């Protein structure tokens, strides 16, 4: 078998795996859509404003309702010391 054919078979196998993953993505999305109703009820019923991702500091647990300068306000001259604080983008006015 010539090398070009082997290469194409290899690429084909990878693309086939990608096809299977695309099916997985559709199934996962369908699951998420089925759960969306309960999640929306939870958000609305409890009045939630944030996702539960990083629970290490109040401003990373609830970034939407924290002050923009919250990471630096623990004491005058404070530096950001929580790892998840690195996910903060610059304030919009600076872009």
């Amino acid at each position, binding site marked *: 078998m*010539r*090398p*070009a054919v*082997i*290469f194409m078979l*290899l*690429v084909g196998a*990878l693309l086939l*795996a*990608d096809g299977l*993953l*695309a099916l*997985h*993505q559709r199934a*996962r*999305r369908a699951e*998420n859509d089925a*759960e*969306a*109703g*309960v*999640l*929306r*009820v*939870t*958000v*609305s*019923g*409890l*009045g*939630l*404003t*944030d*996702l*539960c*991702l*990083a*629970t*290490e*500091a*109040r401003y*990373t*647990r609830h*970034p*939407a*309702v924290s*002050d923009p*300068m919250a990471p630096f*306000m623990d004491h005058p001259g404070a530096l950001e010391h*929580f*790892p*998840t*604080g*690195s*996910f*903060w*983008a*610059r304030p*919009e006015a600076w*872009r």
Partner: protein
Amino acid sequence: MNGLSRQLNVIDYSLSSLWRRRFKSISVMVVFAAVIFLLASFQMTTKALTQAASRLLVMAPEITIQKMRAGRQEPIPVAYQKQLAGIFGIRRITPRVWGYYFNETHAANLTVIGVDPRLMPLGEKLASAIDTGRLPGDHEVVLGQGAEELLGGNRIISLFRPDLSLKPLTVVGRFRPATDLLTYDTLFLPPDDARDLFLLPPELATDLCVTVANPSEVDTIAKKIAALLPGTRVLTRGQIEKTYHAVFGWRSGFASVCLLTALTSFIIFAWDKASGLTPEERREIGILKIVGWQTADVILLRFWEGVIVALLSFVAGYTLAYVHVAFFDAGLFRPIMLGWSVLHPRLRLSPGVELSDVLLVLCLTVVPYLAATVVPAWRAAIIRADSALN
């Protein structure tokens, strides 16, 4: 010889050539695939989280009012509701009591939410979010999955008030695992019990949630509230959604510093590998020239070598990135995303791959790689046959 057959022959030769230098080729492919894997994983993770935030937080309170003093949030007087009674368009104002409880045994932060669901939109359906049990009554609590695991699954839990006296609560339910992304660290209890836990007087609340009759009037009503209540911060649902786009944006410090550094290192690596012609390679090109190959043919050979390496690395890197995000919850990024958090919620990310995302990663990786190898390819192609064989 037609064009297709010529290209196939060149591809055959390129593959044989790559296989002869397999250690070098495989090392380039592994590093290239790793860079693509990192970029694509980060892109998929941030996109999945941003989409989840947009999808879920569309039901966040339309307006949230917080009281500020000296740049910090402080409890808001419940009596502020009366001052807002005259604003036309407000359907309901609900005081909420919420805050954080630090569990010293496990060094974990828990979120305590005290709200009366009967006063919240869709609150009458909130029982559907509870897996086992029911909504909490007086001195009762419903726990998120993580909070329950942390507190040991006891039926009665005791929490410390600020004065270190104990407040016992009966666990009457647990939130469904499907809501982990919202409630994993949550203790949900009636507002009066939350007040008691935080020793907050009845005339104060943490914030006020405002429900508006017509969603298109939210911004106007928010401005009226801000004018009526100086010293407060008025947050709208739109601002909350915007925060999440900013938090997980590509411009965040982590993404731009780490990933672009990795990409630049790879381009330097690719340039170095492609430009360093070994004596064997020079000799090979010399022989090809002697047997009749033109400069254009050698450039075509180098082009196909670049395309084969880039294509295989791209497909492998992108596929692994999907597996990493969808099946392993972006495990490599979790320490950065969760930091020093003790509770690690299950994310169940649903990375949506769209053509624009694939093209973005392709442009950020494959195009710089091919650009970095084009000059070395040309330099290799213009070697004189006699000088290469000497």
